[in-house]
């Protein structure tokens, strides 16, 4: 059964679609209104990384850094040292892609509560091609001590994640997608950093699908299809790759006895890896990974790319059958 707090029109063809990054922009504005310590730094992508709303409202708390992502991280660290809560915004490929060491040395090693918003993550960036499709960001951010890693599933969750990130005293990475994707959640859907939520639950589950980001919508579609085939599934929305909600994951993995992870990211080092690192130490259970298989992206429509790299409904369903078959 689908979580009652989710968008009622979730499976309708006219389900509202909004870019996840837009929810970040709204959340940033709200965070800025609630706390005057919030400042925003941008690296020449104010419009597309959605910092323009904050910039218009709080020009005195906005800093344009230019195409200089290493500096973006370091300047934010310095502002945090003076008591600010800096959000740094760019494309995920450039921040944290280009400035990983600066994030490590000046932000996490220094324990500064800088919030890193990486837009245009995933292959669904589309026509821009592989240089702009960041599919390694979860791996390189979750490996840094102290870093919280969030990957919201829709614009509403991105808004909540941004507001909550501003309240924490830790560094946070927020992964955002460019394209319009279905609105899955509502204002009532619970969100807490470090908590996973059951979005779909069959009373006799044979598999649990743990998904993060926009692909949560595909996972829910698959669960519905499976039900028609008399295969019960649980779908977990995992917006926090770190810290991992170990209790929820262990509980559903024990109940279902087979696990499939779904993410728009390299399989190596991604959310599935995080889940697997935890489960392999606590439960003997088959795990299948839906993600990019050690490849780079390319130009195409988001739908074409999701299909080509095996991240769509077909790829998820095949992984479900493999996982159940390995029980």
């Amino acid at each position: 059964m689908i979580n009652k707090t989710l968008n009622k029109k979730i499976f309708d063809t006219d389900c509202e679609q909004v870019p996840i990054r837009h929810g970040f922009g709204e959340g940033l504005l709200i965070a800025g209104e609630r706390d005057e310590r919030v400042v925003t730094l941008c690296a020449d992508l104010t419009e597309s990384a959605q910092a323009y709303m904050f910039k218009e409202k709080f020009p005195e708390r906005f800093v344009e850094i230019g195409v200089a992502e290493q500096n973006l991280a370091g300047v934010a660290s310095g502002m945090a040292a003076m008591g600010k809560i800096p959000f740094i915004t760019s494309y995920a490929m450039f921040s944290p892609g280009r400035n990983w060491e600066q994030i490590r040395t000046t932000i996490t090693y220094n324990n500064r509560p800088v919030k890193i918003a990486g837009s245009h993550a995933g292959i669904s960036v589309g026509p821009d091609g592989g240089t702009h499709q960041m599919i390694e960001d979860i791996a390189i951010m979750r490996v840094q001590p102290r870093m919280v890693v969030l990957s919201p599933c829709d614009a509403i969750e991105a808004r909540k994640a941004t507001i909550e990130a501003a309240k924490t005293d830790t560094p946070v990475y927020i992964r955002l997608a460019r394209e319009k994707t279905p609105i899955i959640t509502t204002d009532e859907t619970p969100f807490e950093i470090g908590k996973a939520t059951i979005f779909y639950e069959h009373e006799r589950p044979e598999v649990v699908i743990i998904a993060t980001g926009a692909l949560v919508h595909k996972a829910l579609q698959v669960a519905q299809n499976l039900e028609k085939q008399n295969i019960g599934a649980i779908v977990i929305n995992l917006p926090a790759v770190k810290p991992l909600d170990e209790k929820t994951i262990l509980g559903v993995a024990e109940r279902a006895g087979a696990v499939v992870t779904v993410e728009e990211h390299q399989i190596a080092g991604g959310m599935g890896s995080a889940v697997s690192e935890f489960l392999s130490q606590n439960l003997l259970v088959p795990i299948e990974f839906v993600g990019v298989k050690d490849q780079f992206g390319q130009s195409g429509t988001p739908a074409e790319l999701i299909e080509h790299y095996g991240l769509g409904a077909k790829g998820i369903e095949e992984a479900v059958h493999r996982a159940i078959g390995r029980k």
Partner: protein
Amino acid sequence: MSALSDKEIKNLEKKASEIRQSIIEMLVEAKSGHTAGALGMADIFALLYFHALNHTPENSHDSNRDRLVLSNGHICPVYYATLAHRGFIPKEELMTLRKFGSRLQGHPHRDFLDILETSSGPLGSGLSQAVGMALAARMDKNPARIFALMSDGEQEAGMTWEAGMLAGKEKLNNLVAIIDRNNIQIDGFTEDVMPLEPLADKWRAWNWHVLEVDGHNFEEINNALEEAKSIHNRPTMIIAHTTPGKGVKEFENKYEWHGKPPTKEEGEIALAELRKHD
């Protein structure tokens, strides 16, 4: 901060010599670490902590204290020794440098020693953080002044250029950067490894007020710091010409001493030479 009297200069010379002696003792005991740059910056550290900075053991965590950002973290023996002689940390602790459990990590880490404003080591990262501090201080009308210390080798780092451009664009008059222009880096002389000249022109082009001083002349350095206070529309860059290994003839101007410590015997010779001037 103000002009220096002869008595103050004498006192600073004494402090700098004591700091240098501690550096030698620390490095001999640690058996690893960076000698040349640490000795070369002792005069500037003495002037900053015994005269120029509004940062004392009494106000060490006040929000409006001056901030010193050490970008080239490898010269930290001079930083730790100065903090000890100024009373921020016990002098005995200096002998724990680079040892397990010590607050005095091989490169500064503020997790271990919270007096430090930043952690550092990877070159090129300090000026950006200082720029961020200066921006935040200006937003908050905080009178704190931000001092960034850099090596000349890290003028080769792209991140330093990025930070330099931003500081100039933002006209950060509460920011003073000092380059330790000692002409050496690990692989050799800077002008062989990667020519930096004309260095002053580069910073002028980014809208910095640039001054060049003898980094061992207290009056010159102090005058430059005083002049920086009167510059209202630009950050100030002080290029301090220093002698790496300063104070110990055997170590001076030899890039081989960038990254190694003196042996016990070399240390004794160095200490004897430094004590001669006490």
